[in-house]
Structure formats: C-alpha cells, structure tokens
C-alpha cells in the first residue's frame, strides 16, 4: 500500500515538475543536458482533467494519424487515460483512432472525407502532408465539421483548423539534436540526414532545423538527405547506401521515430563509428542508446499529447474556440536523453529494461 502511495506521490511530483518545465520552455535547452534523475520528467503519465465542465454527457470523435506506429500508440494511451477520467465524471466519450500501415496523404484524405459523413463531434488530424491535407481541413470546416490537428504535425499556418495539440517546436528539435551532434563531432565532418515522410511537417521542420544548424559550421557538410517513409527497413537501406557512398560519414541526424532504428542497425552492421542523433522513444532505439550506438534521442511527451488532445476536443465539441480555455497551439515538451538515461527510460516506458 505504501509502495502505491509512494508511486502516486512520485508521479505527482513528475506532473508538477513537467508542468513547470512545460510552462517555462518551449521544448528544451541545448545548453542543459537532462540528467539521469530527470528521466521520469520526459514523459508525464499522471494527468488530471482541468476544471472545464463539458456541456454534454456524450461525445464521439474521430482521430486519424500518419501511420500505425508505436509512437502514436503512446498518444493513444494518453487519450484513453483522459477518456477514463471523463467516464469517471459520467461523461461518455467514444472515438475512433485510425491510421494506415504506410504514411499517405491520399489515405488520410480518404479517411477525412469519410469522417465528414460520420456523426462526429470533432475530427482530429495528425497532418500527413501539410500542403495536401490543409485544404481538405478547410473544406471540412467549411462544411460545418469541427476539425483540430494533433500530435506531431500541424496544418499549414493559414489553415482553418480550430486548434493544434502537440509538438510546436519541431524545427527547434531538429536544430538542437543537430547541435548536440556537431558538438560531439567537434564541429567537423560529413553528416547524413534521414527524414520521415515527404510533406510531413514535423519531419520536414526537423530536417530544416538540422540543415540550418550544420550550415553554421564551415567544417561540416551534409552529404545526403533521404526519406524513409516512416519505415525502419527503408531507413536501414538508405543508411547502408549512404555509408557505402560516403564511408567517412561522421554522423547522422534522424528526424522521426523509424530513422534512428534503421540507421543504428546499419551502423552496427557495418561497424561504422558514425554518431547518431534521432527522435523519439522506440524501444529498439532506446536499446541502441543504452548500448552507446545512438548518442542521443529527442523524446516527445506523447502521453500528454494524447491526454490534452481529448480535453481540447471536448472543449471544441462544445463550440469553444482558442482563447481562455485552450490555446491555438497546446505545446508539449521534447527532452533530449543520453546513454545514462536509456535504462530508466526503458523501465518507465516499457516496464522491463531487458526486454
């Protein structure tokens, strides 16, 4: 019993600390590397609903995201947590949370158009392609749908979507990860960049941040920029090719969740000494981080993204607009973690260090 109380208290502290972090920064500071004891602050699992009183007793939402992938499973867990807490208050929320097996703006467009025909209070989108999807969202808004964006990618700045909950600093994440790489390499050497899906704002923004950072250092050079389409296997193949073409590559910047896994596999296989920096909390990537193959990972607080998405969706469903109740963009934190943080991170996220 005391263990449970300790656990709750510990997690309460995590929440408090996370809120402070979230409130005082837009992401993270490259100057302050997180230390091992801060690992539990990377992802916040303890959430409470805010004081907003929903207008209805029943809501039905539709969410679609880029691709079936563990990253969005973490977002889903946050959503489920919020759904249960609403249920405890007597408010029934049902929703669909759907994605294709491969990222595709066509598939997303199709899903959104189908959702328009459904009886949903709010439709949420993790934009697969900013340019292609934003007009669809405008069209849905015009048709009377309440549309929001969430998780990793927002729509185009001029899109009519109502609000966005998720990472608002993808460019900065890419820049900060790359800065860590450059420092590690002594600000010299060749770098390969791996991106996820073409047009995916979060991936593209990170890639931009990476490119701009490397451009600052005259002794550094980008030798290739490749898109893995959110496929680990493709990331592996692309890295193998890049290493064959440029055996002296000193480092890789990986802009999505699949990039660092595929890159690490290839680097390990070829025995390369290239330094890898990447995004997210894939279990295999965390193992590579623990083993020193990956230098650092930028971990987004997916759980909080999911929880907050559902809260904002309820408010939007009730006809609210960004303002006092919720911002236009609800920012969620990203934290860079290093080798010493890998084991506790594995424990926190996957419950079993050795799995």
């Amino acid at each position: 019993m005391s263990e449970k109380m300790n656990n709750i208290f510990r997690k309460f502290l995590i929440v408090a600390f996370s809120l402070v972090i979230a409130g005082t920064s837009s992401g993270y500071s490259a100057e302050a590397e997180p230390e091992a004891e801060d690992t539990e602050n990377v992802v916040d699992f303890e959430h409470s609903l805010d004081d907003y009183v929903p207008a209805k007793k029943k809501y039905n939402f539709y969410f679609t995201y880029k691709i079936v992938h563990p990253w969005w499973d973490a977002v889903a867990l946050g959503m489920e947590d919020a759904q249960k807490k609403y249920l405890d208050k007597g408010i029934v929320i049902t929703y669909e949370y759907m994605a294709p097996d491969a990222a595709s703006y066509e598939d997303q467009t199709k899903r959104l158009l189908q959702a328009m025909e459904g009886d949903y209070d709010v439709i949420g989108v993790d934009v697969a392609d900013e340019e292609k999807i934003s007009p669809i969202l405008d069209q849905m808004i015009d048709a009377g749908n309440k549309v929001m964006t969430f998780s990793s990618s927002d729509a185009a700045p001029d899109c009519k979507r109502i609000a966005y909950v998720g990472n608002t600093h993808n460019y900065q994440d890419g820049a900060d990860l790359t800065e860590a790489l450059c420092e590690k390499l002594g600000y010299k050497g060749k770098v390969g960049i791996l991106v996820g899906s073409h047009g995916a704002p979060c991936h593209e923004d990170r890639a931009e941040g990476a490119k701009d950072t490397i451009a600052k250092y005259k002794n550094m050079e980008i030798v290739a920029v490749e898109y893995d389409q959110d496929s680990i296997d493709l990331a592996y193949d692309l890295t193998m090719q890049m290493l064959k073409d440029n055996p002296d590559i000193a480092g890789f910047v990986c802009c999505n969740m699949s990039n660092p896994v595929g890159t690490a596999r290839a680097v390990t296989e070829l025995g390369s000494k290239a330094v890898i920096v990447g995004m997210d909390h894939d279990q295999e990537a965390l193992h590579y981080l623990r083993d020193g193959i990956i230098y650092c990972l930028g971990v987004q607080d997916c759980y909080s993204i999911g929880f907050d998405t559902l809260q904002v969706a309820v408010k939007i469903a009730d006809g609210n607009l960004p303002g006092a109740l919720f911002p236009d963009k609800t920012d969620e934190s990203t934290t860079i973690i290093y080798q010493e943080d890998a084991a506790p991170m594995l424990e926190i996220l996957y419950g079993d260090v050795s799995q």
Partner: protein
Amino acid sequence: MKGKKLSEKAVAVTAAIGSVLIMVTVIANTYWASKQAISSTNEAVSAVSAFYLESMADRRAKTITNLINNNFDYMEKAVSVIDDEKIESQEDLRAAIGRMKSLLSLNRFALVDEDDIVYTQYTTYTGGSRHPFLAKKTLDDKMISTVFRYGSSKDLCLAIPIDIKIMGKQFKACFVQIDINDIVDLLAFDDQESTHFALYSENGSNISETELGQLIGTKNIFDATSGNVSEDKWNSFRDDFANAKRGTLTFTIGDVVDTICYEPVADTGWELVVMIRESVIEDQFQEIREKSLATNRRQILFLLALASMFSTVLYYMIRRVAKEKLEEEKENSKVFKSMANTDSMTGVRNKHAYMETEAQLNSWIREGAADKLALVVCDINGLKYVNDTQGHAAGDELIKDACSLICNVFSHGSVYRTGGDEFVVLLSGKGYDTRDEVIADFNRQVEENIGNGDVVVSIGYTTLQPSDEQLHDLFERADHMMYDRKKELKSMGARTREFDEDKQQQ
C-alpha cells in the same frame, strides 16, 4: 583362583569412578541428543518451510492458471453471445462489447477485425503496432502475452482466434487484458508483513511491482541475487526462469540468509516467487533452539545434581556397609577364635589354647625372654569313679567344681583344661610371686575337701629353670610331682584312679 582382597577404599574409588563415568556418559548422551534434536528440528523446520513455500507458490501459480483458463472460457462464450446478437452499427457493437466487458469485469475486452482494427467499448483503433499478438497476420491458437503499458503499468493479455462476421466484416481475434494489479490482489497473502511474493518475467524483471522482501524489493531478481550466490547456482536459477522450471534458491544479502521458492505460471512466461521474511523463519529457528537448549540445560543440571546426590549417598552407604562388614568380620573372628581356644564345658582355655601359649612360651624360653614362670599340673581325683557310678553328668559337674576351685584359688593364673580330668595353670607376674601361698592354700582346701567329700584335685608344680629348653620340661617335672601328691592324697583318703579301680575289683 585366589584374588586380591578388595579394600574399602578400592570399592569407594571404583564406585566414584563408575558414578563419574555414568554421569559423563549421561551428560554427553544428553548433549548429543540435544544437538541431534536441534539439527533434526532445523531440518524439519527447513523442510516444512520449503514445503510451505513450494505449496504457496504452487497454489498461487495455479490460481493464475485457473484465472487464465476461466478467461479463455469466458471469451469463447462472449464471442458466441456477440455472434448471436443482431449488430447493425458500431454503436451496437460497442454496446455488446461493453456488456461482455462488464460481465467479465475486465480491464479490456476487444475484438479485432481482419484489418487489425481493434473494437472496444469506447474506442476503435488501428492496433497493429500496439498488440504483439497482431504481429502475425493470423492468430492460430490461444496466445498469452504480457503488455507493458507506458508508465510501467502491466496487463496480462489473453487472445483467442475467432471466426465471425459482424456488419459484413470478418473478425479474427478476441482479446482481454487483465490488470496485473488485479492479479496481485487475487494472490495477496493474509500475512503481508512476513510473506512476500512477486511475479517475474523470464529475464528477472518484477512485473507485479510487489516487493519481494526488503532486500530484493522490486529490483530485477537476477541483479539482486547476483554475487550473493555462487555463479553456478545463479546460472542455474536463470536457466530455470528461461525454461519455466520450478525450484528454490538460498542466497545471502548482507548477513541475512533467505530462501525463495519459484514456480512457473503455465504459458505466461512468468515465474511466481514466494519468500517468507527471513526473520520469521529465523525467529522460529531461534525460538526452537533456545527452548531445546534451555530444556537440555535444565536436564543436564538436574542430572548433575541427581548424580552428585546419588554418588554421595552411594559413597556413604558403601562406606557404612563396608565398615559394618569389617566390624562384623572382626567380631566373628573374635568369636571363632574364642570358640577355638575355650573349653565349652568349663569356660576356661582349652588344649588348643594351651598349645598356642606353649608355642609362644617355647619361643620366649629359647630366646631367654621368659622369666618368672611357674607351671601347675592339676588332676581331678576319682572322676572315672563318678562317671561310672553316677553318670557322666555328675562327672561333668565334678569337672566344673574342680575348675571352679582351681580358678578361684589361682585367680592370678591362666587356667587351661588340657585333658578330661587334667588342668594346667601358668603363673606369671603376681601369680608367680604368690605361688607358694596360693599352692599351700589350694592343698589345704583340697585336704579339707577329702573329709567333706568335695572335689579333690592333685597338683604338682614347678618354676622355670635355666636348664629348661621348653615348657614341656616344666610340665614333666610338675606332672611327676602331681603323681606324688596324688599318692599323698590317697593316703589321706582321697579317691584316686587306682583306688577306684581297686574298689571296682573288690
């Protein structure tokens, strides 16, 4: 065979040594018995504890297995019920799933369609990456897996393949998720202070988040025990987990020795580990040991006291018995000696005593140590006549009268009856010095008795002469003199043998 005569001391020493040996043997035996008892108790308690642990682990592992099997049954039935229901919309399906979830009291009850879309009571989601059992396109058989949810929460996931169509879509699987905390509650011990259990994955991670005692806590059990047992035992322990085997492990952390019992939970890849807080077993051991030792100490002290008391009593009894025996022997010896040297009729010394005295005196005479010695030979007159005429009883009375006369007169001499009617008196010291008066008095008395018809005794006497070589020399002279006196007395009218014989002839 003639053995050496046992002395009182030898008997006492033997008794004392015997007592000490018996005491030592009894104490040693008691000590050994107590050691054996403690050892046996330890083994018994250990065996019982191990058995108790194994039993607890086994029961709880079976509880989980039963829970799993029951849930598989429920799932089959639930799917059958849903299949029979008229479901025309997603709302109908969610409602049906909700009813089943509520009925089964599950954390999650869900159906999966052929596109890996998961249908639960409140959500519909693409779950291909989320549920490991969906990694394969088709589910061939029942599947049990552990779901590590973010935030370290863990579920037991049970999945079964299904083949039903709902709203025109083919459904391929049904699964439930059971919160491990619910399983932990099911397995909880009444005595949570001293009895601990935890569920571990194959690689030693604690998946129940229950503390396995203070030392292991919720740590990985391999990490916690590494270095605290031999490498062989540790490797064997790991192999048991990897191969879903049961077993026990005793390890030392700090100074505390703990024993745990582990039991595989069928088909889950889990090992259920049970441990009773070490102090409980230790306290039990200690209590039994102390009780046993205290009992044995009391027993030994009691035995010591008893043996000491017994030895003392025995010693005094033996000593007393020996003393009494010795005194009795002395007394008997005296009596026997007295009997051997005393004439039973008259009570004076007999012929045997005279011979002993004669031997002693002969020795002194030869050595020249004898001095002032006189010998008187006495013979009763007319004894044969009295025997023949008045019977032996009268004869005996005559002998006694003669002896009384002799003893009374020669009160300072040693009187011996050396034959039927013969006495010898040895005079020394005062008897010697007064011999002449005494002899004269005796003769006067005898002479008076002739006239009175009383006993008449003829005496002859002599003293030790330098030429004498032995007492017999004195006897010879005195005997001659006695015969002379006998004649003299005859002439005075006293009966003599001759006189009596003459009378008989007449």
